[in-house]
């Protein structure tokens, strides 16, 4: 309240200079709107700044050929809305069933215009507070000990209007095109402006720089009319069905792979673009040469004096001149608007296009600055779906939950269940949860055990990278151990050079579940919360440090993990052994027997039968249990007499055998001690 009051007074005092909001969101793209939705639901003071006049301006231009490669699966054969989100890559999260993307397009790969319409509706139907036509051009900090994070964020727009915020959510996406500079790069056309009319390419020879989806999308569009297309890039082609990463080359765009491998003149080349040079001849044809040759020469000397590779190596691959060179090298984050004091640093290596953030999506340089959406993909680049709508809609929710706990004292939402529901709650989530499925190995469900393991608390979709900080980040306590439920592909299964169709790739037996290759649930058990040190020392490619025990639910062809024997039974055994208890279900009759013959009861009887919620069961079911040898039929005892039960039918009896230790009842016999 103090904070709120303070913030209120501040708003009045400095109203003239600054417009104050608790939360400022930059960008009304999918992640900005998603963040706005959660802030609105929580009745927070927020505003979204959008430089365009409408949301989703990136989608108004891109992809250039208008076909989204995020699938819009309208039928799954299931009515479970949460499950269906596993196969809906376009919708944002909301309570409104109208705002499902399948209502906006019938195409499996929808047109980008549908996305623009969808985002417009999302913002307007949910009445999200978006301030359009506001381009934030500068962000700086104002130190203030009273502020949530020790500083305020000061934002300036194109009209020099200033805004002040306690927390800044950067959802600007990645929109600055990557360019390379080499001699002759002025002849290169960019993806952002290149013609999308195939007619313009008729009878031309084209060189495409880059090997991502935009490059292949561009090639796909003109494949039928060009003489041939060559594609050059530093790295080998990464096929998404081999890497299991949706950002790699998708099958929908890979027509050029066909024509290359089926000897139809098109081709792929590997080489460093930095070494390249392009020279234009008098006819306007573009020749590829190497920077190395140009360095020695005066470029103004004209084409004739420049050495071309084929002069020395007469079978040089790209010796044919090109009519056009197109650059399709992707985009990077716009670092330019942040004052140095915010220390927005680019990442390292292949993540340099992204700003550096922690696994909690908070900037490494500035507390209180969170990066959302596709710009936050450095957390799981080339691994999971955090750079795409179907991934960051969940990570945005996670960030919102972290903020609710940090600034408003609202702990991470959780449900407390009795321990008898432990297996059920895991089975329910691994079968339907979309966040775990889409953000595999990044978001995890956490089960915090209560004392004596009689109950547990269930937290959904927590960023697993900050597991060590769980208590601080969620406001929940984990003193008695925890389970982490996560989904994983098999280690060593995914990769650019992997054969993912090899014979016997699927594991069918539950006892080999740890070797499962396809996405499957994995449950880690820790007796205590891992420390940050342990998180750092975790094995390479492991999302988590070494647990005290681990369980894999065997991969399933239908991703339906409800089979009683192959899925649920091994899971139950794992949970039982972690908790050192018996989690079986019992009919009321068995509980009755246990109540009279043992001092302690299994949890199912203790929490059900004893509280007058025993499972009586129908006669037919009890008969099945008797036939299975799991329940003894005492009505037959009359006829069988006291014959010792044989091992098959008497397992119930085995259960009881040494629970009561019979001592010979003492009869008054003649004393025979006088021997």
């Amino acid at each position: 309240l103090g904070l709120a009051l303070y913030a209120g007074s501040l708003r009045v005092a400095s109203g003239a200079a600054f417009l104050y909001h608790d939360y400022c969101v930059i960008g009304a793209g999918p992640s900005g709107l998603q963040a706005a939705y959660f802030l609105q639901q929580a009745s927070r003071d927020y505003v979204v700044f959008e430089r365009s006049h409408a949301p989703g301006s990136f989608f108004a231009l891109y992809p250039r050929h208008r076909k989204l490669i995020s699938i819009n699966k309208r039928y799954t054969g299931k009515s479970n809305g949460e499950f269906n989100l596993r196969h809906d890559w376009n919708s944002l999260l909301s309570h409104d069933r109208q705002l499902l993307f399948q209502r906006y397009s019938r195409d499996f790969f929808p047109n980008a215009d549908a996305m623009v319409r969808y985002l417009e509706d999302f913002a307007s139907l949910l009445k999200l507070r978006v301030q359009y036509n506001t381009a934030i051009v500068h962000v700086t900090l104002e130190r203030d000990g009273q502020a949530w994070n020790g500083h305020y964020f000061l934002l300036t727009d194109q009209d020099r209007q200033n805004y002040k915020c306690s927390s800044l959510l950067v959802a600007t996406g990645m929109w600055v095109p990557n360019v390379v500079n080499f001699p002759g790069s002025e002849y290169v056309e960019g993806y952002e402006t290149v013609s999308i009319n195939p007619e313009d390419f008729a009878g031309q020879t084209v060189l495409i720089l880059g090997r991502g989806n935009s490059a292949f999308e561009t090639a796909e569009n003109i494949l039928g009319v060009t003489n041939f297309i060559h594609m050059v890039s530093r790295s080998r082609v990464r096929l998404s069905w081999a890497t299991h990463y949706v950002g790699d080359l998708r099958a929908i765009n890979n027509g050029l792979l066909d024509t290359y491998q089926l000897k139809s003149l098109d081709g792929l080349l590997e080489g460093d673009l930095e070494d390249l040079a392009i020279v234009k001849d008098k006819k306007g044809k573009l020749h590829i040469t190497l920077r190395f040759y140009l360095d020695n020469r005066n470029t103004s000397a004209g084409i004739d004096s420049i050495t071309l590779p084929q002069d020395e190596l007469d079978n040089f691959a790209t010796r044919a001149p090109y009519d056009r060179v197109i650059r399709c090298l992707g985009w990077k984050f716009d670092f330019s608007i942040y004052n140095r004091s915010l220390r927005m640093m680019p990442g390292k290596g292949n993540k340099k296009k992204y700003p550096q953030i922690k696994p909690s999506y908070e900037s490494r340089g500035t507390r209180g600055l969170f990066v959302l959406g596709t710009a936050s993909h450095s957390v799981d680049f080339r691994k999971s779906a955090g750079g795409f709508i179907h991934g960051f809609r969940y990570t945005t929710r996670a960030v919102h939950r972290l903020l609710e706990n940090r600034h408003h004292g609202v702990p991470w939402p959780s449900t407390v269940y009795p321990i008898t529901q432990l297996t059920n709650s895991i089975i329910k989530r691994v079968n339907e949860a979309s966040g775990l499925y889409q953000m595999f190995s990044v978001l995890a469900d956490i089960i915090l055990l209560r004392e004596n393991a009689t109950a547990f608390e269930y937290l959904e979709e927590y960023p697993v990278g900050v597991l060590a900080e769980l208590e601080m980040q969620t406001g929940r306590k984990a003193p008695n151990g925890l389970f982490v439920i996560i989904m994983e592909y098999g280690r060593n299964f995914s990769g650019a050079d992997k054969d993912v169709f090899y014979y016997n790739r699927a594991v069918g037996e539950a006892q080999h579940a740890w070797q499962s290759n396809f996405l499957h649930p994995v449950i880690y058990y820790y007796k205590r919360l891992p420390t940050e040190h342990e998180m750092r020392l975790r094995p390479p490619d492991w999302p988590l440090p070494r647990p005290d025990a681990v369980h894999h639910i065997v991969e399933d062809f239908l991703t339906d993990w409800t089979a009683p024997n192959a899925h649920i039974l091994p899971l139950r055994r794992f949970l039982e052994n972690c908790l050192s208890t018996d989690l079986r279900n019992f009919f009321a009759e068995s509980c009755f027997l246990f109540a009279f013959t043992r001092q302690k009861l299994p949890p199912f009887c203790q929490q059900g039968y004893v509280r007058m919620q025993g499972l009586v069961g129908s006669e037919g079911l009890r008969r099945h249990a008797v036939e299975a040898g799991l329940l003894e039929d005492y009505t037959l005892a009359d006829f069988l007499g006291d014959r010792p039960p044989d091992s098959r039918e008497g397992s119930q009896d085995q259960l009881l055998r040494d629970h009561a230790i019979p001592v010979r009842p003492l009869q008054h016999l003649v004393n025979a001690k006088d021997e």
Partner: protein
Amino acid sequence: ELSPQEYFSSLQAGRASLAYFSHNVSPGAQPFLEQIEHSAEALQDYGVSVVKVNCPKEDVSRYCGKENALRKAYLFRGNMLIREFPTDALFDVNSIVANVLFALLFNEVKYVETLADLQNIENTLKGRSNMVFAYVPATGTAEHRAVMEAAFVYGTVHQFVLTTEAMLLKDTGNGESDASSARLLFCHCQRATDLAQPCRRTAMGQTLTMLNIHRHLKLMGAPLVTEVAEDPEKVSTVHLQLGLPLVFILSQKETYEADRRTAEFVAWQLLGKAGVALLSRDLVDLNILLRSNVALKTPDEGVPIKYLVLEDTDEVIKLVEDKNKVKRIQEDEEENEEDEDEKENNSQDIQDDQVVEAVSRDKKRELPLEQILVLTEETFHSALSETARTVVLFYASWEAVSLAMLRSYTKVADHLKGMQGVLLSRVNCWDWPSVCTAENVTQFPTIKIYKKGERAVMYDGMWGTEELTSFIMLSRVSCPLKLATVDEAERYLRGEFPSELSSYHHTSLLGVFSTATNEARKAFEEAGNILTGHVTTGMYFEDDALALSRKYAVSPPALLLSRSGGQSVEGIALSKQSAQEMVQMIRYELLDVFPEITVQNLPRYLQLRKPFLILFGDGDISQMESKEMLKLAKGGPQQEFVACWLNLKKTPVGRGVLKAYFATVPSLPVLVWVNLHAGGQVFKFPSEQSITETNVLSWLGKLKAGLEIPSSTLSEEDWKPPLPAYDFLQMMETAVPELALHTSHHRRDTSERRPSESPGGDTGVREEPSQETKAEKVGSPGRDLRGTAPRLAAREKQGKRHSEL
């Protein structure tokens, strides 16, 4: 293999050797040679070397020359020939070892053929040393070998006597045992003084193996009675080390001599089955009942010593013998389990959850669900607004317990067919999770009853057909029901009003309030609300409430409790109680004084947390007994215990309870005291006494004074996991040694690492031919459809085998 010269020159004085001479191996001698080679190792343990002598062709000396000699083996001590064996007497290792030792131990092991011989030997031994008498059906058998091997070790301590005459066995008083199996008797001749009497004998119970004989002789050699003057928990004797129980006879200074005699008597009886120790209570500070006179210590670790009060030495013996019997059964079972383990490898993947298994066995049967409306996210709210009362079962189509409930629910639908104003419906939370979340369903199954315009009532009773039916029936009437006239109130108490319930047998509760008792009325209203479905509640607070209260002799505020259609009406005064307290009180009042315990109603009585006094009967109990028990239940300082009865016809699982208490079902009726909540001791009312209030009370008095011995004690054991889980962590560490290195708990030595596979490449894994996998597939053709175990599995199996080696 030596030449004759080499052999004869290598013979050392006193060293025994078994030699076989041959020119070249004749085909017939081949199996014999193999056996003799195998026995070489065994014979070496007894200092006998085995030699094959290769005779040169031209050699015609004593051993090589005779054609006949080649059919024989020769036993030498030094260079002296002790015996010739025809090769057909040496058919296997057992026969070779047995015969060789038999020849060498000629003096130590006497062979007898007649009873007279035996008695002669026995008589000469009396007062000097003990005798081991063994009968084997034939020489050269495994048993014969075991006896000879034992004689090799113990021959200087005891006199060994061997026979193959079955008659002899009969004459020594072991006639009942059949002559086809070997026997061994230990004859305690050292202690024997009377020449006329035969020595005392202790037969060995187990089969004749070297180990068993060794064990038996060791036990015979142990002192008969060990005197102990320390904490029995710390005592360890040969018996305990050999896995046998130890019986303590607790002694005092005053009775020492008698106790010592008792101990010796018991010890003789238990010789070979258990050890006996004499413990002086005066020397050890024992925190046990003064009445205890015997203690039993079992060899199993962690099992505490049992202190007992026994009246008879027979009981001690019986106790030990029973214990051994149980143990033997357990051992048999363990063996069986091992067998099963080998056959099945994993019983882990066999379902041991009775509910899950029952439901999956029933899954192919189509359920009669026509009576039950399926609700979806779209229809849920509209359906609720259409009917006065909607019962909704929230379940998950994969969850066994809720599917079990769905089966009972179809029966409820049958019972309630045609009833107006009640709609039975169901929501599958696997299809419609958002409905279930919105309705706050956190457990499967959940049943809620929605009334138009009112808060939903959550069903919190037993998951059974009858209980749910009754709940739905009773919750049709608003609770509490406001009664308008005295007449209505009277009819309500008789169960005739409201008419919906008139045909339905139920208990009614009527709150009587004057206008001044507003507070109590409010609490009662709330309590009635909470109890909806469990009991009908009504209330009357008109001006003439006094008339009602006068009739039933209560003063408002008060409750009138009417059981079985108004035949008996109890009045209960109300004081200032909160609604919760009132619910508690009403629940308590609803309990019967002397109930018949059933599976369904036990939990209500368990909540009292009192000991149970249960009369088990096969069918109804007699009026006499029921009268006495009722007196018992009502009389005295009330409710120290729950007096109840159990009808085994109606509740057959009661037999299971009795079997657990007494191993077998005792003659019925039987009265049992069980202290479920403290100690778990079970006492059985003496069957020869008749069940009368006085008898039972005096028995209970003795129980409390600790004068009775419990028939059994309920196990305090925790509910542990029934079976282990797959240890994937360990499997992963075996396959990926790097993982183990990343543990912060225990770092393994780097030298343990297997050469790591080429980085990033599992090509090596993929290329190798999958013989294992193929084999697996041939064995189980059906498995292919489920997916195939990849090669890595086979690798892992190999690895396991290596580590075992």
